[in-house]
């Protein structure tokens, strides 16, 4: 009784936990500029990615008069996607599945071979963050200058630099958001409409949205996007193994770390690492690579460049931080040599999956049809008996004409006895072959009445096949459907 009435006193640990904040404060990262092969490669990828992104909508592509003349255009309004000489309809959306599979498996393969190089070099978040950091460094100076100014009092120098930086950031962000909308509308047209106030509210809305997200994500959020928002770092561990080439601190060589190497190296038995923290200072995500593989590491290799600079200066061999595999590092530490193993079960599987998906996609693209047929049987009535004793079934026939000319299509029917067809409300005579006209680049919908005297009804239905043939090109396709009559389950 008294035990229940007494309040439980929280233990010391619990008290401490209840006082701890739910969210860790962000430690601001001030990356220092660095030079070296990794940095050069990162700049090259950045320039290529940005050039492609900004320039692609302006590439023209002649598709004939009156048709979209943009090489890459996602025309949502007219339900067409254009990629150079390829043209996709909403019905082709499964190609998107293929593209996503290819993209995902490529990512898995590259990650299992060389770690998160996507994150380090090609991810838009990395590219734009890098670009924004470059702007920041041009205006506010390098790491130490920035830190000093941020901690110092408000001054004119601080104010104009901050204003200038954010102005340039917003400019770049706006350019980015503006380029985005050009993928969804003809670039010159939408640009003119944008500046003359003629564009739709959707254009302004999306331009603003992508300006805002670029500014916030690349200017302010930066490495927090990778650490907290992006799901990829959370499951990338499943792609990596001990044979993946990743940015690695060679601990067996560097430890124990310490200063004063030249004087007292021998007696202190220090490793090559002089503990200068150059690798930490250049890291865009603000981590210490010497702690080993970690979630925040985007494998960009800037710490490699930074460490090499120091190693050269201290007169030691380069590549204390390098790209290597965990297995080889372990062997090195034990004084063994371990071969590079690129062929592993997972890489073989990824390559096989890539080849398979690529082949399927390639074949599907190469043999893409310009004609499509879909036939839907009437839900009710399933069949109607007409005066001369025949049965009549109604169908909704849709003809997809992907060619750029209006075309006559011949619709014929196989598998039904005494068959005849008519277009409802158009012709009364029953014909063996219907001629249906579909406009260029569009879908024609027809209600087709099929008359016949089915002789092979099973459970009230019999399989029939519609065949559609483009009279001009000879391309044809078919669609399996059913003809229904009495004796079905519903009739029992």
């Amino acid at each position, binding site marked *: 009784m008294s035990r229940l009435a007494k309040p439980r006193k929280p233990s010391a640990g619990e008290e401490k936990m209840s006082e701890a904040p739910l969210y860790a404060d962000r430690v601001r990262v001030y990356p220092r500029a660095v030079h070296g092969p990794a940095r050069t490669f990162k700049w090259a990828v950045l320039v290529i990615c940005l050039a492609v992104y900004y320039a692609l909508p302006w590439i023209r592509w002649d598709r004939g008069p009156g048709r979209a003349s943009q090489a890459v255009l996602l025309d949502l309004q007219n339900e067409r996607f254009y990629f150079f000489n390829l043209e996709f309809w909403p019905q082709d959306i499964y190609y998107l599945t293929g593209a996503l599979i290819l993209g995902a498996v490529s990512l898995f393969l590259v990650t299992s071979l060389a770690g998160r190089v996507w994150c380090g070099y090609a991810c838009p978040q990395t590219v734009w963050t890098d670009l924004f950091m470059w702007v920041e460094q041009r205006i506010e100076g390098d790491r130490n200058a920035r830190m000093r100014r941020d901690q110092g009092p408000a001054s004119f120098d601080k104010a104009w630099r901050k204003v200038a930086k954010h102005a340039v950031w917003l400019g770049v962000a706006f350019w980015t958001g503006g380029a985005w909308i050009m993928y969804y509308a003809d670039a010159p047209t939408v640009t003119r409409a944008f500046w003359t106030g003629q564009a739709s509210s959707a254009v302004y809305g999306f331009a603003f949205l992508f300006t805002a997200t670029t500014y916030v994500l690349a200017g302010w959020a930066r490495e927090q996007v990778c650490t907290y928002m992006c799901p990829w770092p959370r499951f990338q561990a499943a792609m990596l193994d001990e044979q993946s080439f990743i940015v690695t601190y060679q601990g067996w060589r560097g430890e124990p770390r310490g200063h004063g190497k030249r004087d007292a190296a021998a007696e202190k038995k220090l490793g090559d690492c002089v503990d200068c923290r150059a690798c930490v200072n250049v890291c865009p995500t603000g981590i210490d690579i010497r702690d080993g593989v970690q979630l925040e590491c985007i494998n960009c290799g800037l710490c490699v460049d930074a460490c090499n600079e120091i190693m050269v200066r201290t007169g030691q061999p380069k590549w204390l931080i390098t790209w290597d595999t965990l297995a080889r590092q372990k062997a090195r530490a034990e004084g063994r040599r371990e071969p590079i193993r690129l062929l592993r079960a997972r890489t073989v599987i990824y390559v096989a999956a890539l080849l398979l998906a690529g082949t399927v996609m390639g074949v599907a693209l190469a043999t893409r049809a310009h004609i499509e047929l879909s036939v839907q049987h009437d839900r009710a009535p399933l069949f109607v008996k007409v*005066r001369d004793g025949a049965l009549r079934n109604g169908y909704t026939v849709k003809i997809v004409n992907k060619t750029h000319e209006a075309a006559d299509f011949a619709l014929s029917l196989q598998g039904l006895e005494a068959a005849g067809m008519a277009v409802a*409300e158009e012709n009364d005579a029953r014909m063996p072959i219907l001629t249906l006209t579909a406009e260029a680049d569009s879908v024609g919908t027809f209600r087709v009445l099929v008359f016949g005297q089915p002789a092979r009804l099973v459970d009230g239905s019999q399989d029939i096949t519609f065949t559609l043939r483009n009279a001009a090109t000879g391309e044809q396709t078919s669609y399996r459907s059913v003809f229904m009559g009495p004796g079905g389950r519903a009739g029992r």
Partner: protein
Amino acid sequence: MPTKIEKDSISGQDTTGHEWDGLKELNTPLPKWWLYTLYATCVWAVVWCVLYPSVPGISGYFPGVLGASTRVQVTNDVKALAAQRAVTMDKLTATPIAEVRQDPQLMAVATTAGRIAFANNCQPCHGPSGEGRPGYPALAGDAWIWGGKLADLQQTITYGIRSGHPDARVSQMPRFGADGILKPEEIAQVADYVMTLYGKGTAGADMAKGRAIYGENCAACHGDNGEGKRDVGAPALKGAVHLYGDSRETVRAQIANPRQGVMPNWNQRLDEATIKSLALYVHSLGGGE
């Protein structure tokens, strides 16, 4: 029960003063926000009862000072909807039915309105998609007793069949059995003959008598070969579709004591635009002429 209100040392609240086997209960007052919300809902309820229909009486109810009524609201909504549709429906009324099909927009409105009006008014007898049932003609088929042209359909829907309206379509088949015009064996003979018209006759039987009886009694309306006559509403006997069935029993019954189906005159209930829409919709089911 002894009441000893004491202060609880931990929470600082009074207890209720009751004790059950050592268990005491805190007398924590209701939160103020909760209490005031309760008071507010009480006030709200009183105001509501004054403003809106609330207190039931013996033969009615207190309607509330605002005079709100959901029935009035619905009636107004229906009126507003009709006003909204008036332009199109007036156009539909003014356009001759054959010309409606020339105007795709008007036609789209008409077939939609027709589909809904059909579901509301016609489908109990003719089936949800016009497939018909014994005694109720299939409208999706092509066997028409009074004609399947748009004008025929409009007329039939407007005035009905044997509906009592002066302009209704009326046909009267004599009760050959019930009124003693034919003897039972004669009815059986003519029934067997009629069945040969649509290929269900008894093979090898002597049809001479049946044919003779048919010629004297039936051919005037149903035609020499059972092709029917639409201007008198005599159904075709020779086709594959029969309103009341094609078995020997149903044919004999229909000759002896015919069923005379009735279709209401819908002009008593539907406006002209709706009737036109219905005719266009029925025509589009597949059997229109």
